[in-house]
């Protein structure tokens, strides 16, 4: 059993860490600041990376990060475990709020980070993680996802990145990539299914 999907896909999980996240979410919903402190230290680096990737501005990203955790503090009770692991909820929330910020400010310039380039940034990743063990875990997880993404056909991968990280609508992606709308949808759907299948195999 690998530790890559502590929050994750069928058949792969690290129960201790995942269970700890659920406990923290319960504690936060009950108004425990110490639990929020722990969850922040655990995932703020990851969520800031998501926000920064989307809004493409460090200051805006940190504001979104603060908003995300503040929203989590106030509305942790809205989290439903049946919808996914806490970290999935956090990433989804951060992505949604970052896209909102990007669309409202119109200041972010779209850019795409090639998966291959990201592989060279593990040093920063290690520095940002809350603990050495967690840094290794994030790095391992990131490596697996990058490998999975690299295995996707390039059009699927790029389309998926534009949809997920740039928050573009399918029509916007079609115009930008000069692809038919149906093809864009197909790329995204097939890309995610392919990624899911890879992750299932672990």
């Amino acid at each position, binding site marked *: 059993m690998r530790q890559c999907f502590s929050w994750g896909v069928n058949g792969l999980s690290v129960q201790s860490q995942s269970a700890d996240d659920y406990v923290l979410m319960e504690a936060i919903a009950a108004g425990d600041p110490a639990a929020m402190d722990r969850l922040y230290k655990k995932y703020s680096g990851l969520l800031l990376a998501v926000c920064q990737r989307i809004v493409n501005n460090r200051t805006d990203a940190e504001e979104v*990060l603060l908003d995300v955790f503040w929203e989590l503090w106030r509305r942790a009770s809205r989290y439903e475990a049946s919808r996914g692991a806490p970290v999935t909820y956090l990433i989804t929330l951060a992505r949604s709020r970052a896209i909102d910020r990007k669309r409202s400010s119109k200041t972010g310039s779209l850019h795409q980070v090639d998966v291959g380039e990201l592989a060279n940034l593990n040093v920063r990743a290690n520095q940002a993680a809350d603990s050495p063990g967690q840094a290794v875990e994030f790095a391992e997880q990131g490596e697996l996802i990058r490998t999975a993404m690299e295995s996707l056909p390039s059009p699927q991968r790029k389309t998926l990145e534009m949809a997920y990280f740039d928050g573009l609508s399918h029509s916007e992606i079609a115009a930008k990539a000069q692809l038919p709308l149906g093809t864009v*949808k197909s790329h995204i759907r097939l890309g995610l299914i392919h990624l899911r299948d890879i992750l299932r195999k672990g």
Partner: protein
Amino acid sequence: MMCQQASELIPLYVVGGLSDNEARQLQSHLATGCPGCNAMLTEFTTVGATLALMLPPAQPNPDVHASLMARIARHKDSVEPRTPGLLRRWYAMSGLAAAIVLAATLIAVSSYWHLLITQKNQQLAAMQDRLDAVKSNVNSLTAKYQAAVQTTALLQLQIKQSEMTRKMFMAKQLQVVALAGKPVDKHAVGRIFYNAKTHMWQFCAMGLKPLPPTKTYELWFITKDHTKKAAGTFNVDASGDGMLTAAVGQNMDQVSAVAVTDEPAGGVAVPTGSIQLIGTLQ
């Protein structure tokens, strides 16, 4: 919407690429509780979130953490109470599912309001208790204030009497009549201080025996033609001291003697008791 159609839309839904109409249709289907499609949504949501792991974690400015914890400390009670998950997806449902959600919503709202009302009632009861305590305190203070007012009035009266006495004693035309306790009580004495200018006089007695409540001492002016005129009643304290102040219209020159008798409480028009003090004017 059938599951087949929903399964094609779910991957696109996860990345937020559906039109509003498509999203509503998919949400309606998911809201029916279809286990397969809901499980698929959860799985693809997780798959989408794994993309975040491609990114190298960043290091937030410590100020962000400080701001967050400070805000939490300031608004520690801002945590939203737990509500049923269905409540948050009501908008995505239709038909029977929406009715079920609406019922659950009403129950939840009703429960919430019941809880809120209960809490408010408890707060109201606590405030009522505090109000009662304040009222009791105010009543106690009011009683003390009234007692103080009475004491002040009594002191003012005593001061006024003392001032009158002082003025009387300082008058140039002051006459003094000495009364002796013979024959009843040899230790009793009395004095009348008469101001011939203001026609005010003051009687003081010492050494008289305290009387029961049913009786009182009464002062008499006895004129040269042996007429006895009542001049007022008084009582003495435990040490036998008593005082009486009055204004008399008659000229004291017509008075040949002064006597004190013990009479029924309230006094009488004609003396009936025994003489306790007596003195003659020179």
